[in-house]
Structures are given as C-alpha cells and as structure tokens.
C-alpha cells in the first residue's frame, strides 16, 4: 500500500493524446498515492471531466491532437473561468523551447515539466507547487473576492517575511493597487520594484498605473520600452494596442497587434483582437485572414465560437465572396445550436443572402435572428442584427437596436464609428448623429428623474430606477456609478439593507474594472465610509 502524502486527497486530471503516455503517467501518479485520477485523450473529454469534477491538479501535454495545443486550451480555460485560481495547471512538454511559448502566452501555467521525468521528480515538483499555493491561499481567496485593500495588507505580510514568495507577493500587491485605483501608490510601488530589478511585469504595472492616473503619454513610452527590451512580453503589446484603440488610432493598434501575432502566431486571443480592430476600421481582408487562422485552429474543437464564424461570414460578404460565406453559414448551422449563437449567425446570414440576391431567404434569416434574440443581445449580435435589419429595409427595428447599444456604451468611439459606418447608406452622418443625440437625451432624462425623486426624499424609488437601468445598460458607467451611489444613499437614509449594499459594491467593482478614475468613485467611497460609521461596521459591509 502506498504511503499517505500531503496530496493524497487531491484530484488530478491527465490530458494527453497518446494512450501510452497517459498510462505511464497514471502509473507514476498512483505511486504518489494519488487515487482520484481522471484521464482525457482530447480537449472534449477534458472539458467533460472538468464539468463533472473539481480538479486540484491538471497535467496537460503541450501537443494535443486535433489542431489545438495545450497553451490554447489553458488560455480558453482561464478566460472562460473554467478553473479556479487554486487549481494547479502543469504543462508537459518534450522540449526546452516551450518557455518562449510560455512567456508569449496570455495565461501562464503554474509550471511546466520537461519529459521524461521520474515519479520522484513529479513528487518534488508537486510539493513545491502546493507549498506555494498554500502560502498564497489567503491572498488568492481575497483576490477572488476582489477585496483589494485586504490583498495589499496580506501581501505586505509576505513581503515583510522576505521568504521565497517575496516577488510573487510584490506582483500581486502592485496589481491590487491598480485594481483599487490607488494609482499614485501603485506608481511609487512599481518604481521601487523596477529599481530592484527592471522586471517586465513591474514595467507593465507602471504603465497601467500611469494610464490610470491619466498620464497616457508616459504610459505609452514605458510600454514602448518594454516592447524593445522584452519583445516576447506580449501583454505590453496588448495594452499599447488598447490605448491606440481608445485614441481612435486603428492603424497604429493594428500594427502593434500584428507585431504581437508575429511573436506568438498561435494565439487565438490575439487573432481575435486583430479581427475586432480590423472590422472596426473596415479592413475586411484583414478580418478574413485572422478569422481563417482561428477557424482552422478550432475546427471540430470545443473551442470553436459562433462569433468567429459570424465575423468571417461578414468579412466574406463584404469582400463579395457570398458563395464561400453561404457555405460557411451552412457549416456553422450544424455546429451551433444555442439560442444566442443562432441569433448571431442568422443576422449575418440575413445580410449575406440579401447581397447574394436571395431576398426571401434573407427575410427568413432575419426573422430567426430577431425572434430568438431573447434578453439582452451582446454588442456583436446587436450590430449584426441592426445591419441585417437595414439590409432588409427594416430601418425602425435597426434604430431601436442601435439605441440600446449607444445607451449601454455611450462614450465608446468604436461604437460611434461602427454606427456611422452602418448608417452610411441609410441616412448617413445626419441620421447617425440624430440617433446618438436622442439616445443621450433619454439617459439624461432618466438621471434627472432619479435625482428629482431623491431630492423629494424618495431614495428607494430613485435607487430602484437607477439599479434597473444599470441592469439594462451594464456598460454605461454614468448609470452604473449613479446606481451604486444612490443605493448607498438609500441605505444611509433609510436603514441598513445588506442586499442593497452588496448590489452597490458589485456595481462599484464594475466601475473600478472599466474606469478606475471615474469621478463618481470618490463619492461612492465617501458614502461607504459614512455607512460604516453610522452602522458601526468594522469590516466591509
């Protein structure tokens, strides 16, 4: 019988396409007294396993059959939140060259192992990694809760201990300062880290903090430095790209994303961001190129997405290749069965069929797009549906859809640009402007009504109005921040209500995440402090 080890109770998943490798890994694992072991030969099987069990450790081979590699799979798991921060993900590879893939990756595995290795080596590695997880467990939990202030305090304890997790704690602390919008403190902290050693993560943190504090030019210059000194550090390219997009410089954004994709040609996330920028700037050939790569890499894989197909269908239609677009629609229809996916694909189809000279098919597709569009449409589907309505002569429906999009994301130059683009042949700039003005007026009216109610002492009514609006327009930071504030005022005036405070805190987090220096955040922090004082709360409510 195997001896008890500190990890005997852990659940472990092996992902490898070679049956021989799976069985020898399995033998090694059982010699470590780990009994709860799942096995998967494909990504599909792995996803099924992850759905049924909560795994503590995942051992995944970098090379997986079927076009998708282990790194793309890890990116997918992390971006879709399919594994917890506490889950250990270990990549197995046959060569040392993997580290360059790793640095260029979006999401880092906890470690990677060069094969072959003995059970003894595996044991040493597990112990080391689990020791680290245990040391950082409190910090991880606080991060999961978004309790950034507490995260910085917990990190300070580790930093003061000066043990081998010092740099890990520094990295997490810096991020917590940025997340809680303490930009001045973050800038100072990162500068100290850089003085210790110019580590790329600290330089990136500095760039984020500078951007948050409003010093975009300095932020850009730090990012350019990272790109030249650590050309494999792709997060710097991404942030630089985002800054260019915010400034409406699509060409610069595309060029920086292009250089990033040369460093990491297999990153699906990056090809997807290229397509988003290219689509916004009307560069359909570029969209076609990027999406063809993504579709090729995700063909027959559970990682395929309807939005990728819709983008390619749209690009092909714009490029006049309706034959290929229709073939792709037929193929996509067999792969995607979810309501939201059908809405998106049908909207794309409605435009394609109209352009291909099949008005009847276009009409049917549009009906499908609009009737299945229950609830709130994601922005991409909304644009596709509006475009389909315009192409099929249903201008009023298009206007109603676009109004929601504008009200949800009123300050986005991308949204405004896309609307102007859509309306080019349907009333032009004048009509687009009219739509934006009337949409903005409605929001002002809503805010004024709520303020009126609050002034009349009807705090509960005001907070209810704004909270409902925030649910409808989760990206409208003016509405969301006002909703958080008015919920807290309501609590302050009318008495403690834990549910309302929780809702307000969620909204506050949403604002912090999207715009760390939103002016309303100060008011929210002040009223929170008053609530704590009034109800004698020591901790966060």
């Amino acid at each position, binding site marked *: 019988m195997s001896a008890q080890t500190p990890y005997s109770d852990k659940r472990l998943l092996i992902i490898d396409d070679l049956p021989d490798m799976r069985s*020898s890994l399995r033998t090694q694992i059982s010699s470590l007294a780990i009994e709860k072991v799942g096995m998967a030969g494909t990504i599909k099987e792995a996803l099924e396993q992850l759905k049924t069990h909560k795994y503590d450790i995942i051992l995944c081979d970098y090379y997986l059959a079927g076009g998708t590699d282990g790194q793309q799979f890890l990116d997918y798991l992390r971006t879709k939140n399919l594994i917890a921060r506490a889950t250990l993900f270990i990549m197995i590879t046959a060569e*040392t060259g993997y580290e360059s893939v790793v640095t260029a990756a979006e999401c880092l595995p906890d470690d990677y192992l060069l094969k*072959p290795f003995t059970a003894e080596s595996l044991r040493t590695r597990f112990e080391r990694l689990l020791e680290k997880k245990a040391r950082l467990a409190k910090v991880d939990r606080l991060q999961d809760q978004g309790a950034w202030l507490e995260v910085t305090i917990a990190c300070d304890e580790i930093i003061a201990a000066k043990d081998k997790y010092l740099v890990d704690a520094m990295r997490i602390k810096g991020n917590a300062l940025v997340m809680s919008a303490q930009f001045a403190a973050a800038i100072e902290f990162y500068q100290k880290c850089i003085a210790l050693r110019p580590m790329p993560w600290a330089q990136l943190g500095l760039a984020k903090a500078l951007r948050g504090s409003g010093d975009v030019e300095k932020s850009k210059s730090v990012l350019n430095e990272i790109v030249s000194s650590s050309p494999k550090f792709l997060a710097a390219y991404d942030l630089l790209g985002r800054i260019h997009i915010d400034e409406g410089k699509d060409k610069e954004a595309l060029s920086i994303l292009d250089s990033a994709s040369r460093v990491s040609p297999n990153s699906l996330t990056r090809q997807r961001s290229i397509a988003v920028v290219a689509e916004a700037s009307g560069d359909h050939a570029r969209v076609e190129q990027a999406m063809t790569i993504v579709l090729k890499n995700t063909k027959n894989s559970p990682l395929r997405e309807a939005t990728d197909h819709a983008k390619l269908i749209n690009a092909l239609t714009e490029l006049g290749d309706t034959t290929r677009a229709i073939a792709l629609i037929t193929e996509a229809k067999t792969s995607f069965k979810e309501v939201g996916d059908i809405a998106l694909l049908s909207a794309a189809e409605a435009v394609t069929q109209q352009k291909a000279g099949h008005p009847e098919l276009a009409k049917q597709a549009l009906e499908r797009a609009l009737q299945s569009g229950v609830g709130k449409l994601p922005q991409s589907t909304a644009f596709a549906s509006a475009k389909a309505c315009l192409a099929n002569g249903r201008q009023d429906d298009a206007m109603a859809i676009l109004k929601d999009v504008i009200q949800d994301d009123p300050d986005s130059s991308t949204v405004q640009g896309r609307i102007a683009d859509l309306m080019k042949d349907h009333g032009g700039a004048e009509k687009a402007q009219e739509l934006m003005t009337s949409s903005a007026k409605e929001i002002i009216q809503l805010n004024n009504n709520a303020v009126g109610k609050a002034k009349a002492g009807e705090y509960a009514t005001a907070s209810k109005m704004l909270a409902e609006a925030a649910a409808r327009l989760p990206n409208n930071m003016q509405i969301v921040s006002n909703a958080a504030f008015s919920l807290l005022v309501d609590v302050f005036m009318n008495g403690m209500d834990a549910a309302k405070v929780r809702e307000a805190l969620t909204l506050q987090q949403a604002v912090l995440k999207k715009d760390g220096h939103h002016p309303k955040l100060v008011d929210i922090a002040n009223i929170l402090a008053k609530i704590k004082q009034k109800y004698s709360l020591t901790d966060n409510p």
Partner: protein
Amino acid sequence: MSFADIAALTIHDVKNRLAHLAGLAEGRGDTETLRTALEASEALTHLLAFYKSENGILNLVVNDHSPSDLLVELANDTKGLRAILVDVDHGQAPTLWFYDEVLVRMVLSNAVQNAFRYARERIVISAIEQDECLEFSVHDDGAGYPDSVLVDSGASAAVTRDGTGLGLRLAKRIAEMHKNQDRCGDTRLYNDNGAVFKLILPK
C-alpha cells in the same frame, strides 16, 4: 522542409519514445533502463539547445527562483537511480535569485551527470552568494579534470563520445546569456580534492 526542421521533429518523436520507455522501466522497477532512457533524452535536449544557441534562437526567460528548491530537486531527481549520494548544501544559499530555471537546471543536471562518472563516494551540490553573484557548485571526490579541460573552463574542450565537451560549451554560453547591468555570468572549472564545476550568475 529543411534538415533542421526534420531533425527537430525526429528529436521530438524520439524523446516521446524515450519517455514511454522510461515509464515502462520505472513501472517494473528497472532502474538501469530508466536511467539510460533519461540520460539519452537529456543528450537530445542538449543537442537541441546547442543547435538553438548556434542559431541565436535560444531564448532566456529570467524570473525569480529559489536556488535551494532547485538543488533539492536536482538531488531528488537522482534518488534511487544511483549508488552514489548527492548531498545538498544550501545553508548559505540566498532565498531568491533571478535566472532562467529551465536552462540552469539543464546545465546543473548535466554537471551532476558528469560528476557521477568520476565520483568515488559522493557529490556535493551547493549555492552561495559571493561578490554580488550566485555561485552554484557541483563538487565530486574523483580524480579531477585533466589539464586539457581546465584551460578555458572547457569552452573549447573537444566534444567526446559521452558529450562532455558539448555540455561544457553550452554551460558557458548559457552562463554568459545571464546579464544584469554590466555583469554577465560565467562558468569555472578547477580541482580541489576532486573536480569542481561552478556556474556563476550575476544579481
């Protein structure tokens, strides 16, 4: 497809087979076969790394690591595979240092393999901070390096059938790739009641 591409794919395939072989041998407790499979695989890793460094595509990924952890790992990797013991002396090792762990592990593991060939009873691996540098040492109690190897830390040592020269050259290159401010790393070979291999990495 170039010869280099085909060679890389073949090496990858052979390594998979060696991994399978190692797994089978380990499963039935066949230590000798396991050790041979691991060593063969390590030789291929060296070959590939050397090829990359020749072509300027061996990338360095420097991060914070614990030298003690690495030493313990290296000693554990040989557990049960060898009659000779590897002692770890990490009493004076700094808590953290910055280096590429994969490449440094490869260099030290190779130095330990060499030491096994000449050691009589024991090998000591250690890490210590000296003059703002981290010094990893692998010290055996064998007959020591011949003069021909000592000349320039083995950088021009002939590549012998057991691959010793290749390992030493690669070690020097990897050491030199580790740079901070004006300093760069180095390797040193000398004799002191046996052979001593040092890998020196700047702060």
